[in-house]
């Protein structure tokens, strides 16, 4: 029973982190239907930023969070203007974006390999084990999960307590009607894009902690996890993304405690995704059904 409890807590900790990774993608995909295949690479890029600070500048890697945000906003702004207007004019934006962002993902991976090398890098744990409910958890994991909560709360505030957040939700729910109501979609999209990128890099500074280490190819797996999380939790719904993250985290963690399920751990998110899209394609919290 002790093991079961451990797995539950561990699953929650990882689930919060997965939610954090998913949330930026949710903004991009939810607002503009951009299939950002480079999302995971942006996350890893954030991780390398933290690594650089810790190893080269000898300061706590968590400083990467405030430092990366302005950089990510600028980067997001530039990438938005370089790609999105053209993508939105494409005959099929979803597909075109998928290809463009695949290319961007390749470029990012190449840059990371050129700058940091192909080896896995790790960050020293920020402290000794942390005791939760009578059992010990790595400090890195607990800190990362704890930081995910305010980040998710901030996005919630953005979407539900600001005017542009309302416009963002309107565009996510029904772009045509939002335009007809006078919403400036381009402005909403630029901000969603920039914030999405900033969330990716911010979550990234935690990846080296959570995943034990990062290398330039870590990103593609994270992209898939992020898509799984947001689809399970419904597009455009940040609360859903958190729940999606928790589901993936818990299911993966629990499968590791079962004698014959450990080798199937990697399949868990995919099976969850398939079950959700087939049984409830709108996700667990969605209203609109995306069926042909």
């Amino acid at each position, binding site marked *: 029973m002790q093991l079961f409890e451990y797995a539950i807590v561990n699953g929650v900790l990882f689930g919060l982190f997965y939610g954090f990774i998913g949330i930026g993608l949710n903004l991009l995909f939810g607002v503009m239907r951009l299939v950002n295949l480079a999302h995971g690479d942006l996350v890893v890029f954030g991780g390398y930023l933290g690594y650089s600070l810790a190893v080269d500048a000898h300061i706590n890697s968590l400083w990467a969070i405030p430092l990366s945000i302005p950089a990510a906003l600028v980067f997001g702004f530039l990438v938005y203007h370089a790609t999105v207007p053209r993508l939105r004019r494409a005959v099929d934006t979803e597909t075109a974006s998928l290809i463009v962002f695949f290319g961007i993902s390749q470029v990012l991976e190449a840059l990371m390999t050129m700058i940091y090398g192909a080896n896995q890098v790790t960050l020293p744990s920020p402290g000794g084990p942390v005791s939760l409910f009578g059992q010990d958890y790595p400090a890195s994991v607990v800190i990362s999960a704890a930081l995910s909560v305010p980040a998710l709360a901030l996005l919630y505030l953005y979407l539900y307590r600001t005017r542009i957040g309302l416009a963002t939700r309107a565009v996510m729910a*029904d772009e*045509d*009607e939002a335009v007809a109501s*006078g919403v400036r979609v381009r402005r909403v999209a630029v901000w969603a894009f920039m914030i999405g990128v900033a969330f990716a890099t911010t979550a990234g500074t935690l990846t080296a902690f959570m995943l034990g280490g990062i290398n330039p190819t870590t990103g593609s797996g994270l992209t898939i996890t992020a898509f799984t999380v947001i689809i399970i939790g419904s597009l455009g719904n940040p609360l859903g993304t958190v729940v999606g993250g928790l589901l993936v985290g818990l299911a993966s963690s629990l499968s590791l405690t079962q004698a014959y399920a450990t080798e199937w751990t990697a399949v868990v998110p995919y099976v969850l995704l398939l079950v959700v899209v087939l049984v409830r394609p709108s996700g667990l919290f969605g209203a609109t059904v995306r069926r042909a």
Partner: protein
Amino acid sequence: MTTLLEVRHATTGYGTIQVLWDVNVTIPEGVTVGLLGANGSGKSTLLRAVMGLLPLWSGEVLFDGETINHWDPSRRVRSSIAYMSEKGVIAALSVEDNLRVGGTGLAAREVKAAIARTWDDFPILRERRRSPAGSLSGGQRKTLALAKALIRQPRLLVMDEPSAGLSPILVHEMVETLRRVRDQYFVTLLLAEQNSTVLDVAQQIVVLAGGRKGFDGPLDEFRSRTDVAAQFFGLSAPPDVPSNERPAND
């Protein structure tokens, strides 16, 4: 009577398919204009062109005597041209959020006041203020769409099929509401309709057939002209069905 909106030689379409052929419409301030036509006659296309949702191939749209061809839709909405689409509401957002979306760009205080005014004008919406718009009945949805379009107190309200999907009783109520709104908000209405009941609210009728303007004149004259009916029932309409007139279950 000053001219509020003028459409000059409007020609446009989708892709390479032309839908409108050199359409001229003049809407004087304070006059409710009913745009009539069968499916595919180009009504919605004309409204989209007015709102800037579809660029003109050639021609001009003037508002208050000024050309607004280069204005994007949000600028037109923010400059006193409200648009009530056939759908009219954002189903996933609550009633109140829909109204607030309608007030995008206004100062927070103004939005608050406008919403308070809406609660007085449409008490039914106040009762459902927290419900998602998608959960409203068809009539309530149209009411919300109308209220949302009125949030900014526009000078011109462009409406695409305000009666679509409503039962005859509700259509009648809608006509009453429109009359009330027109007088209360001093708004000029441009409605595209297939349902002739709604004509009761109009003072001027424009008939589109096959993307060209047919009849254009006062309501009484329209009523007395039997030859217009032929145009109205779309005998010369092309087989093309513009996408906005696809079945609602798409």
